[in-house]
């Protein structure tokens, strides 16, 4: 008896452990707005940090006044976002509007889950900056609308720098290294907080070297990590990383680098301007000590290359509130709110004419000089798979930081990158 029972328990447990993959749920039943949009709720997925409080409040008020519908923002985290978006787009009742990262937009456009916004582009997008709009276009159609862009800057602690006796901010990479060296010698602060896997910064260095992470081989894309220029970029990263005690196998979000910085014992970190807000939220006292400068390049006349991160707004093809979603985009991307977002978050707006909003934001002022030399990962649908955890670019970085030569490390991850680039969609 007992043995039978145990066997039954065992088999049940075993099955439970390994079964189950996929599934579907969700219910529909949204009335389309024949008599206005009253009674409807528009759900918008925005990424962590994208929607500052002032902007969100004003925008919600304006939207609700104009459409009589309700607006609901749901904040998402970047880690694991692709799986979440895929699943939500497959459901009967997806979020209506989604913020999608520019490097991931082509992949979603290719899945057919995003609505065609070509008519919106002709209506309000005539002067969207061409380069910023590139990621939203796939197969000649507009699948998203450019929302904002941003590049990294050096966020530094003025007090630590003053303690070390440094005046002014560095204009070249060599000067920056000197300053970090001085902080290391003269204070007991950690000169720079840079974990081993901040691959956005590494991508910027790659762009600075004039190289790309992938290259075209015939009609398909393959890893370009073996390129000596990429290796050079990684060597520079390694020089930077030597000034930090941060783990070599973690990225800038684990732990949040701004929160480490907020403790006051770190000279600087490389991050988005708005990360200063995260630091201030963690420690109010740090606010007066925060300063920004452009990541310096090889020479004083040309700042370091940067990864031009950005986000687009897309509308789910499965959303039953297409009209309302477009109304939202018209308001959110209007000069008024696009300008307000630029001002509050220090991000580059989607039209050049709105850049005047940045002059009051010190982080944006520091970011602006580098933006011209910025770039992105290749805007191809195949790219997004490379970013999936565990990201082979991150593995490459850790390998080099732990002593492998860039060529060896490239060899180690190339097969994985090529496999992911070759995945059929």
């Amino acid at each position: 008896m007992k043995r039978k029972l145990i066997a039954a328990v065992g088999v049940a447990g075993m099955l439970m452990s390994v079964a189950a993959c996929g599934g579907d749920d969700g219910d529909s039943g949204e009335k389309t707005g024949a008599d206005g949009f009253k009674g409807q709720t528009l759900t918008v997925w925005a990424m962590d940090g994208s929607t500052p409080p002032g902007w969100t409040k004003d925008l919600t008020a304006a939207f609700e006044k104009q459409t009589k519908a309700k607006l609901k923002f749901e904040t998402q985290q970047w880690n694991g976002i692709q799986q979440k978006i895929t699943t939500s787009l497959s459901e009967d009742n997806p979020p209506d509007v989604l913020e999608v990262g520019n490097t991931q937009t082509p992949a979603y456009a290719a899945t057919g889950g995003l609505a065609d916004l070509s008519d919106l582009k002709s209506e309000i997008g005539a002067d969207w900056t061409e380069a910023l709009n590139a990621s939203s276009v796939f197969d000649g159609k507009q699948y998203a609308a450019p929302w904002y862009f941003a590049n990294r800057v050096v966020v530094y602690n003025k007090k630590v720098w003053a303690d070390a006796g440094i005046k002014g901010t560095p204009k070249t990479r060599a000067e920056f290294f000197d300053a970090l060296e001085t902080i290391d010698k003269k204070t007991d602060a950690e000169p720079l907080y840079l974990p081993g896997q901040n691959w956005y910064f590494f991508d910027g260095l790659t762009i600075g070297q004039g190289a790309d992470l992938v290259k075209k081989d015939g009609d398909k894309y393959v890893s370009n990590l073996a390129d000596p220029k990429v290796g050079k970029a990684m060597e520079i990263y390694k020089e930077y990383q030597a000034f930090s005690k941060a783990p070599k196998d973690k990225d800038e979000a684990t732990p949040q680098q701004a929160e480490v910085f907020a403790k006051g014992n770190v000279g600087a970190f490389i991050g988005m301007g708005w990360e200063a807000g995260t630091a201030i939220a963690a420690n109010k006292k740090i606010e007066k000590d925060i300063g920004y400068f452009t990541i310096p390049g090889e020479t004083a006349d040309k700042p370091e290359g940067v990864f031009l991160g950005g986000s687009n707004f897309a509308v789910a093809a499965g959303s039953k509130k297409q009209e309302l979603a477009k109304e939202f985009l018209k308001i959110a991307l209007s000069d008024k709110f696009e300008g307000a977002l630029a001002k509050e978050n220090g991000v580059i707006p989607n039209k050049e004419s709105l850049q005047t909003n940045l002059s009051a934001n010190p982080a944006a002022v520091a970011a602006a000089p580098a933006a011209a030399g910025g770039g992105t990962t290749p805007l191809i649908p195949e790219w997004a798979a490379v970013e999936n955890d565990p990201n082979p670019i991150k593995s490459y970085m850790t390998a080099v930081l732990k002593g492998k030569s860039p060529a060896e490390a490239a060899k180690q991850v190339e097969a994985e990158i090529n496999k992911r680039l070759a995945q059929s969609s």
Partner: protein
Amino acid sequence: MSVQTERTDTGTAAAPGVRKTDVTPPGDTGSARRRGGASAPYLLLLPALLATVILLGWPLVKNGVLSFQNLNPRQLILHLTEWRGFDNYTDVLGGSDFWKVVQRTVVFTTVNVVLIMLLGTLVGLLLARLGKRMRLLLMLGLVLAWAMPVIAATTVYQWLFAQRFGVVNWLLAKAGWSSMADYNWFGTQISTFSVITLLIVWQSIPFVAINLYAATTTIPKELYEAASIDGAGTWKSFTSVTFPFMRPFLWATTFLEVIWVFKAFPQIFAMNRGGPDRLTETLPIYAFVEGPGNQHYGMGAAISFLTILILLGLTAYYLRTVLKQEEDEL
């Protein structure tokens, strides 16, 4: 039936003849009643079977179907069904990654189960030897460890072994091992596995210990007396009295632990996400990373199906013994 009949079931094999006196004679009225309520046991089984079919059977079938499909974001979002035949399986079985992971999973399971059974048995025997108060205390500790939610426990271990502010590194440094002050436990395969093993062993000792303690309570005292009269020492009375009684329990718990360790997902995944460099991915994690992680759901389903087969293979010996016994009993 009472507990006593079950005891003889396990006991007769070990000490034939000795325990006859314990058996409760079967009731005379039994046969008449049995015929009337023949369908009752099946009716009573029904709810459990139904739950199993709905919660396990259906997902299993669904998973099997998925494993023959090409299901990526595009197919998922547009609700397309694209059949791939056995391509998912040939892709998985043809790659070297899968076999490496299988090997790793088997080694990981073996090491953990051996440690768990060894330490768990020792603790179980200790429980049997302790006085009332100490036994209660130890029991309490075991039950608390057993009751700790998996993710909470994993998080605590992560903190204990944290590179910068972890207690373990701090202690090691205090104890004079200064090179460990900034040691990154999650930087290499071996050290990550060590922490995970420690966690898993710690989590499963209570189950084994309490189970075996329960087993020892079924051993009649007279047997030990008889053994000592025959001149058996501690070791001899362990091998010829205690151990035979414990054997079926040891078998059953080993079997359950193999399953439990083999399928361990949250501990390993939450600890370091199968890192560094995918070196601590065991089969369930591999299936998750390749399936939902890389959004190749068909591939993930194929891997998880193969995982079930491998697990069945690993536990086949025990399952066969159990099934054979059942046939004998019929």
